[in-house]
């Protein structure tokens, strides 16, 4: 390579960095950088009123899973924390399962429409996707509240005398999350099904496969990357959900996101809040790495 080319390449790299610099500065100051402070805080002790103080300790990380007995100082599993983690993981997995169960037929339906109406159906899925999550949660709240649409209709029809108590339960949070995150499942599924060669179906039927066999042996294996993508795109925000459990779960049915908030509010245990945040971040990063690997494998095949 000539010296001239070298110089040109160096200049190009410099321009790239200079042009990107303002965006990087904003992001490092108001998004990425402060995450490091959270990491440091997770190794400090709770302050007397709020905030943190020295000494550095692993106490906060330990208290994610264990509590120390006040009298004899022995460690015991923190049941209250475990039940919140379990609820978060359980509700997130169920949300993923439900959105897949109803999202797959929906994505298939959209992908098999004639080209002209397909864009419209896709647009109908996209609108809720971009609509304020709080508004969609309020809308669901309106439907399932004790004095909400469902209960009012059922009572007026004489089917029940007491309203069904859905609001402020895990079920309410589950319904809400499935509702708000559904588009995140349908869109990647649609992308995968859209690439699927429908001629393979005919081949399958020609070879005397039943509909179920075609679904299991032909369709599902080939759209698997879309299934992985959709599942992770739903699972990640579900696990970090804050608004939906707060509005529909009431104070008691907390998920990790609300538990983190509690530590910075009434809980006054910033180090524990910081350690919980870092834990959530690690889980989400691992899930994302799985997603990136699956997406790359898909690209090299496709």
């Amino acid at each position, binding site marked *: 390579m000539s010296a001239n080319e070298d110089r040109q*390449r160096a200049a*190009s*790299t410099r*321009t*790239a*960095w*200079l042009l*990107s610099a*303002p*965006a*990087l500065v*904003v*992001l490092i*100051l*108001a*998004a*990425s950088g*402060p*995450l490091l*402070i*959270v990491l440091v*805080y997770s190794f400090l002790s709770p302050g007397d009123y709020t905030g943190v103080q020295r000494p550095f300790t692993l106490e906060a990380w330990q208290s994610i899973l264990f509590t120390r007995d006040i009298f004899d100082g022995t460690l015991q599993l923190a049941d209250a924390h475990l039940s919140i983690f379990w609820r978060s993981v359980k509700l997130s997995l169920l949300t993923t399962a439900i959105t897949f169960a*109803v*999202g797959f*037929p*929906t994505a*298939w*339906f*959209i992908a098999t429409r004639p080209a002209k109406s397909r864009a419209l159906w896709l647009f*109908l899925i*996209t*609108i*809720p996707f*971009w*609509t*304020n999550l*709080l*508004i969609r949660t*309020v*809308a669901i709240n*309106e*439907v399932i*509240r004790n004095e*909400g649409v469902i209960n009012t209709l059922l009572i007026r029809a004489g089917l029940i005398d007491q309203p069904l108590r859905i609001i402020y339960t895990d079920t309410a949070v589950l319904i809400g999350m499935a*509702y708000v995150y559904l588009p995140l499942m349908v869109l990647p599924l649609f992308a995968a099904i859209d690439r699927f060669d429908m001629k393979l*179906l*005919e081949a399958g*039927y020609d070879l005397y496969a039943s509909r179920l066999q075609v679904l299991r042996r032909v369709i599902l294996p080939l759209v698997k990357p879309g299934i992985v993508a959709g599942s992770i795109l739903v699972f990640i925000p579900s*696990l970090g959900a*804050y608004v939906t459990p707060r*509005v529909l779960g009431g104070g008691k049915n907390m998920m990790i*996101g609300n538990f*983190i*908030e509690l530590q*910075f509010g009434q809980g006054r245990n910033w180090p524990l809040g910081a350690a919980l*945040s870092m834990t*959530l*971040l690690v889980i*989400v*990063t691992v899930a994302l790495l799985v997603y990136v690997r699956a997406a790359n494998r898909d690209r090299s095949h496709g």
Partner: protein
Amino acid sequence: MAERAFSATRLPGFATVAIVVFLALYAPIITLVVFSFNDANSVAVWGGLSWRWYQVAWENTLVKEAAVRSLIIATSAALIATTVATMAALGTTRRAAFRGQTAIYVIINQPLMVPEIVTAVALLIFFAWIKVATGYQGLGYLIAAHSAFCIPFAYLPIRARLEGMDLSLETAAADLYATPWQAFRRVTLPLLAPGIIAGAMLAFVISLDDVVITEFVKSGGQDTLPTYMLGQIRRAVTPDVNAISTALLALTVILLTAFFLLTRKRD
């Protein structure tokens, strides 16, 4: 009974599920919109059509201030995010792979990957330091936070537009003795404009909708419309929340429709 023609792509029950899903997706939103025009005091009983709750919301100073604050923040954040995202897109596309390119991508897309609650907590701590150190309590913190998480939403459509653009026009401009700045101002920028406008609109919508980060970063008395609504819902659902939601919803749908029309024209 006429036998339906065999269709390989048809799977039994799928269309039914899909239709139910679409109905379930829109029914709550439509209910919310309809009840925002309800004359009754309760959210559950229909009492005839009226603008009453829009008037109630409009006459509420807290709502009006929150609306103005939302618009100031969203406009500033969209402007800042779009400007820096345009520069970053020009820097990272249409040139040979360079050292650190992946790092730049990761940082730009970071707000899409980190859970909002984690960023919210991080900013709460960081901005608390700055508030103590400088004594400044204004909207600047919210604008900075919103600008940051809007950057990837502005960046993606601009980058997509740039990647689809032909380099030869700019080369032609250079051949005709245009300075790099003239070529950018007269050739690149007009061609890129639809991407920039689309990016700015997405950034605006994303900023307008944010709840979690705003809730943690705002100082006292700095409610935006979404955080005001969140505070209201905690007490009791009042019909004016429906009116505010409907207004926000209408704004979002208008902007999104414009966005789709803009990006569709590309080809």
